[in-house]
């Protein structure tokens, strides 16, 4: 099972977090981590703590913002939401991702033909 998990590409996590926040609205750290886990169907190995490093970076770049709130189990939690700058970044990143992954798929298909 561990072999089937992939190391996450640097920068990819940013994209995933931004997309999660865009799709689901304000979320706290655990929900974001959980969501990424579920969507990727456990294929991607995310050390759960890592999400917070990603979050602080995004906060510093003002792509997301954070507010203190209360979690569903009545604990103090920080709720993150995407900003306008973050949306722009997401759009750019997503387009870039499509282009790259499309190119790589085509490349892989090409080598399959031989």
């Amino acid at each position: 099972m561990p072999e089937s998990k992939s190391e996450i590409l640097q920068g990819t996590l940013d994209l995933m977090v931004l997309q999660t926040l865009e799709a689901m609205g304000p979320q706290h750290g655990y929900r974001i981590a959980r969501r990424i886990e579920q969507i990727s169907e456990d294929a991607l190995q995310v050390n759960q703590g890592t999400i917070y490093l990603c979050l602080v970076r995004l906060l510093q770049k003002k792509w997301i913002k954070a507010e203190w709130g209360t979690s569903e189990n009545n604990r103090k939690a920080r709720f993150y939401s995407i900003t306008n700058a973050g949306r722009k970044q997401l759009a750019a990143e997503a387009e870039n991702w499509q282009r790259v992954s499309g190119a790589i798929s085509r490349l892989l298909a090409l080598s399959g033909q031989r």
Partner: protein
Amino acid sequence: MLSSLYRAAARIRALFASRAFDQDLSSEIESHISLRTEDHLRRGVPPEEAERLARVEFGSVSQLREAHREIRGVPFVDTLLQDLRYALRLSRQNPGFTLFAVLIIGLGIGASSTVFSIVNSLLIRPLPFRDATRLVWISNLADDGISEWNTQVDNFLDLRAKNTSFSDLTGYFGHFEPGDTKLTEGGLTHRLSGLRVSQNFFPFLAVQPLLGRNFTGEECKPNGPGAALLSYGFWRRYYASDPTIVGRQITLNDQPVTIVGVAPSSFDFGTVFAPGNHIDVFLPMPLSEETNRWGNTLSIIGRLKPGITLPRARTELKILAARMQRLHPERQTFRPVLTSLDEHVTGHVRRPVIVLAWAVAIVMLTVCANIANLQLARSLGRQKEIAVRVAIGAGRRRLIRQMLTEGMVLSLCGAVFGLLLAFLVVRLLAGLTAFKLPLLSTVRMDPACLAFSLSLALISGLLFGLAPALQISLASVHDKLKDTTRSATGTRHHLWLRNTLVVSEIVLACVLLSGAGLLIRSFINVLQLNLGFQPERAAAFHIDHNYSSLEEKTKFCDRVLERVRTLPGIRAAALTDNLPLVGDRSWDIAAKGKLYQRGHYPEGFIRLVSDGYIRAMGIPLRAGREFTPRDTSTSEPVALVNETAARTLWPGQDPIGQLVIAEGGQHPARRVVGVVADVRHRSLEQGSGCELYIPLPQRDENTPLYLVVRTALPPAALAFSIRTALRPIAPGLSTDEFRTMQQVVDAAVSPRRFIVLLLSGFSAFALVLAALGIYAVISYSINQRQIELGIRMALGATVRELQGDVLLQALKLASLGMLMGGIAAWSVSRALASLLFGVTSTDPLTFFATVLVLTSIALVAAYLPAVRISKIEPQAALRGS
């Protein structure tokens, strides 16, 4: 782009809120884990397992925290802050060392900053005028080919009209004197220093009056309406910065005058053109027939046109002057000498200031060597601490950085102290008026100076932080963790480094000391000079007189002398028109019956004196007689000459009874009645040239009058009674016009005194540092050699022998230092040559004294710790405790 900017800003902010960030992170982690645990419980994981699982999945919290810090902050600054905290804690643990180090560094940096501010004002910053580099000082070479004269008005006007090199020329009356202008107000008289300037003087220098306006053309005509422009200092002092001053009528020299303006504070005429003097009022100088008759009176400044070089202007003016001379033989000779204004103002102090700069650099180096040495000694005590830190994972680079940070903390603390010191000293310096140094009042701490001090602190912090840091790289952790106190000899290379530092301190001290020694000897030589008069117990007053005819003036002089001479405590009193070392004027003189080529007349310095002057000044009379009350306007015209004049005019003959022409052919020749000693009247270092004394009653001329008294008591005690005695006939005699002749001499030696004082201070400081260095090294080596010394004592060596041994060690260091220092001093002393007087730059006595002082200091510094040897208990030392 924007996002990375945001991120940088956020990182810097995070530095200051590290704790808050940590807390936020902690609570986030806590809620994350609790949520996860609940999820696990919901899925049926047993409770004791659920939380553990959640934590495992989360990963290492402490690692995350570190990574979090690194991402959100600036890691370099973070460690720096850590190092700083550590350094500060360390310095609190050892306040004695810290205080001492900060004190030494502070003194070093304070001295350096002060000297830098002087260098900056005198040599680096341009003169405080617009386009100061294009300003040229134009003087007139005197007949003796050495001294410089002023220029006659007509020559100036011609030059100004005909030259093509200068965009403009301006001039001021060069023979101004302190207290030469009289202000009468409400029945009281004040002596002011006034300066007559040509109309374009202020516009030429681009000096904009703070209040009011410049002189008008009308005011600069002969007998035009009286106008005065106040200097900023006088306006502030005397008129309490009265903003409504412009337009007020005052009485100057018994003439009604309107105050038309106030000069700005940035324009201090005295500090640039007449160091040691200050000007109170500026008056217009008419360039007229009348002022032309006054002779060579104008000091000229020119502004070069863009693109014209100084040599080109020099050539042009030479040709112009020769042509003017041919066309107007009736005028005074004019041989223009051109120097850049900068050179004229500061040229003569450039060398001393550079010497000072080098001296202070040496002091600063000594400070660095000393602190490095102390740091080394301290790092030795910290070897175990350092080894432990290495063992628990501190990298070598991290440790070196720690050491450097400690050095920086020390040097920056020192810099703060030093800057405070420098601020105080610079304030003091700028206010010194007794020193005849140009631009002294413009010396100040400016941003350049601050930047200099700061970089100095950083560099020196690097230097003495580096010494112990190097030590770390040499040390091997393993050895240090083991007890090292049992080794009998101590670490070799450690001692080597420290010895090198001490030797270099001695070398530096040697260079400074010998340089200071040479200058002190020159200073003493100057003080011991035979001045030709006796300044002790003599004083001078400037006296006002309303001169209308020679007869009245003579009567006034007689009454003054009569009153003063009867005062108790007055040994002699006389009047003169000029004091030695204060003012000068010279004429062409000639022995009657001899032929001289035009322009080759001997130059004679003229003094109009009353009877008794020679005695009152204490000038030795060599032959003949001095003036008596019988030398009057109706008796035969007579003169006294000094020995140089006697030799020059009548070589090999008896001068008494000869005739001398001093006032041009139309005046009768004067009979020489006496020969007096040469008086050093121009400067102490300069010979006197030919001097000629003329009786006051025999020359019809309006000159200033100085009363010279020789007293039995200290002259200051008599100032009051003299003023009281003269009040009925000279009511305007004010206090500030009294000065002792000693003050006059002191002012003349003040530039020399200035540099000698500073340099002596520096060398004393360097000497103390060198002594400290020797003390530290010897005391350390005794500590290291306790066991060795104990063994030798046990084997029968006496304390005296062992002490001798230690002293010899110090002496070896000192001799090595002195040998190298001697060579260094010998090779740099030539740079001092132009500052020396009466000693050669390789004066053996000075070098011998230097060696003597350094040797005794080294021995004392070594003896103090050596005393401790007698306290060593051989038993205890051998046990190694």
